[in-house]
């Protein structure tokens, strides 16, 4: 069991020059075989390992990460967590996730800095206001909190917004999910990793999986850069690389991989204390606790694995931001980056067993799977432990494409986050 983190521990360590902090997780070397191998050390993979160990006592588990854990999308996302989804299947799932997030700091004994500051989606036209009422009512019926703010109320809460009546995209109000917020992304990975490791899970970094081996329709292990590792259960949670890893097991997925950019400004003193999203201008922004504005926008519109984006998209995202926050114009961009996201036609994930027995797919999170990490890991673990899909995720199985029963969340994901 890892040493408990506390202020007292910090003081005690200070007296010994911080010389005896234990490792957050072991540098495990892969064993020849495991009961469960999880491919991908992002949020979903590691959370799955954690819940397998904690909730189901399954600890003969390895997480195999090709680089460093959290180096995928989880480590480069804009950290918005929310549950304002329109289809009941999604609402139930994402709200479960939000509730897990709310108590995750205590559970993991690792401060994930969940800052509940609300997601404020701007309404730029009377039609958008009408549509927002539809969303609000749907959310309420789904048991999700939501409120609509008048222009005046919004002005009081976010005074820096562009309330000019002749603005290109005038602001008529906003729809807010108060329980939404931001979470320190790296902490989620590290916190789960520490918890999983403490329960015996092996986290193996620099261990790329080059193939999933299946015989007679059943998985029996994975080939890696460190050799073959046998396993009767394989969970694939590799986000932007889903199509590639699945292909090694002969599975095609309804996924295209696109770049999604994000960027930060130089740190400034606090000036924004909610997440603001403007569908019309294609930008969203929050201010981190360090003071940078964390800015996101839409996808680069071409498939790519290059993990970089085009400057045209950077520029239009920034221009969109300045339309809603003109006073940010003199701030400076400090860093811009991109992740590669797995986009699915209906903007809903794939969670469920694969056509190959023993293999579970956790993929298709697209631009918004950070918020889903606790629930994604929890339900994936449950399904592995029970050898059947948890009822909450049944609608998200791969089979929905053959049935044509898509779970269209395009409206909830008009813009990436």
């Amino acid at each position, binding site marked *: 069991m890892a040493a408990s983190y506390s202020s007292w521990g910090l003081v005690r360590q200070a007296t010994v020059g911080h010389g005896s902090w234990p490792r957050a997780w072991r540098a495990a070397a892969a064993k020849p075989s495991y009961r469960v191998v999880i491919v991908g050390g992002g949020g979903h993979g590691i959370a799955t390992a954690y819940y397998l160990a904690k909730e189901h006592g399954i600890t003969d588990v390895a997480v195999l990460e090709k680089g460093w854990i959290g180096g995928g999308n989880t480590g480069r996302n804009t950290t918005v967590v929310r549950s304002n989804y329109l289809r009941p299947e999604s609402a139930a799932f994402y709200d479960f996730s939000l509730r897990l997030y709310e108590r995750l700091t205590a559970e993991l004994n690792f401060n994930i800095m969940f800052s509940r500051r609300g997601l404020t989606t701007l309404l730029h036209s009377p039609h958008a206001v009408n549509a927002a009422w539809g969303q609000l009512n749907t959310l309420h019926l789904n048991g999700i909190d939501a409120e609509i703010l008048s222009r005046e109320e919004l002005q009081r809460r976010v005074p820096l917004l562009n309330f000019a009546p*002749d603005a290109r995209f005038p602001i008529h109000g906003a729809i807010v999910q108060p329980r939404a917020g931001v979470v320190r992304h790296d902490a989620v990975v590290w916190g789960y990793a520490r918890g999983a490791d403490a329960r015996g899970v092996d986290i193996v970094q620099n261990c790329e999986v080059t193939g999933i081996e299946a015989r007679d329709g059943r998985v029996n292990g994975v080939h890696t850069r460190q050799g073959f590792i046998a396993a009767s259960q394989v969970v694939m949670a590799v986000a932007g690389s889903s199509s590639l890893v699945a292909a090694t097991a002969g599975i095609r997925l309804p996924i295209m991989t696109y770049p999604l950019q994000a960027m930060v400004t130089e740190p400034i003193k606090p000036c924004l204390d909610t997440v603001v999203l403007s569908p019309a201008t294609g930008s969203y922004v929050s201010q981190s606790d360090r003071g940078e504005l964390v800015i996101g926008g839409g996808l680069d519109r071409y498939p790519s694995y290059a993990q970089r984006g085009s400057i045209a998209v950077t520029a239009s995202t920034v221009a969109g931001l300045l339309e809603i926050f003109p006073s940010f114009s003199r701030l400076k961009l400090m860093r811009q980056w991109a992740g590669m996201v797995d986009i699915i036609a209906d903007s809903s994930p794939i969670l469920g067993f694969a056509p190959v027995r023993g293999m579970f797919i956790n993929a298709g999170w697209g631009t918004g799977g950070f918020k889903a990490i606790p629930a994604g890991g929890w339900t994936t673990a449950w399904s592995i432990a029970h050898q059947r899909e948890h009822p909450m995720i049944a609608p998200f199985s791969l089979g929905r494409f053959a049935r044509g029963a898509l779970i269209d969340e395009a409206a909830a994901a008009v813009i990436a986050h």
Partner: protein
Amino acid sequence: MQAEAIIAPAPVAAAAAAAAAATVPQDSGLELLPLPTRGLLSFQVSRQSAGALSALRSALGFEPPSRPNSATSLHDVHCLWISPRHWLIDSEPAAEERLFAGLAAQARAMEGTARVTRSSDCFDSVLLSGAQAASLLARGCALDLRDVAAPPNTALRTRFADVPIILYKLRAATFRLHVDVSLSHHLWLWLADARESFDSEHGR
């Protein structure tokens, strides 16, 4: 620039005039001139064929462009390559009827695989000229339009100032721009704004 209140309709003409008003004497290296409506005809064929070129040749009386992104002309009739299946004939409005008749006859002869469309109404046009014309264009268009890269008679469709345009380089440092009529005010506003900052930079 101050965002124009989109609620208050400002006639295109006014914005165009504003853009043009910024036009300064000859030596400024940049002249911007809204053009009166041109006679424009689109000639389209269903598939690429030698027949299309010979039809054009017969109707126009001169050789149509054989290379993409180029134009040929005789007197004030210009034939612009738009796509392998589409040419734009840009002429004096007075010549439009005659050209239309000739092209329509050719199209008929091609039995439904060709079509002529009157496009004059679809475009507003502006002439941009002077030593600085290319550098003004460079503020809104990613293509290399300097004489070294884009010789006279270059004609192409691209984006400029965030709107699709047909750009025709008549001769060195002289460009004719055709912009969709429903978007032309956007282009004028853009040009007026660019013009202003251009002038201020050059100390005017």
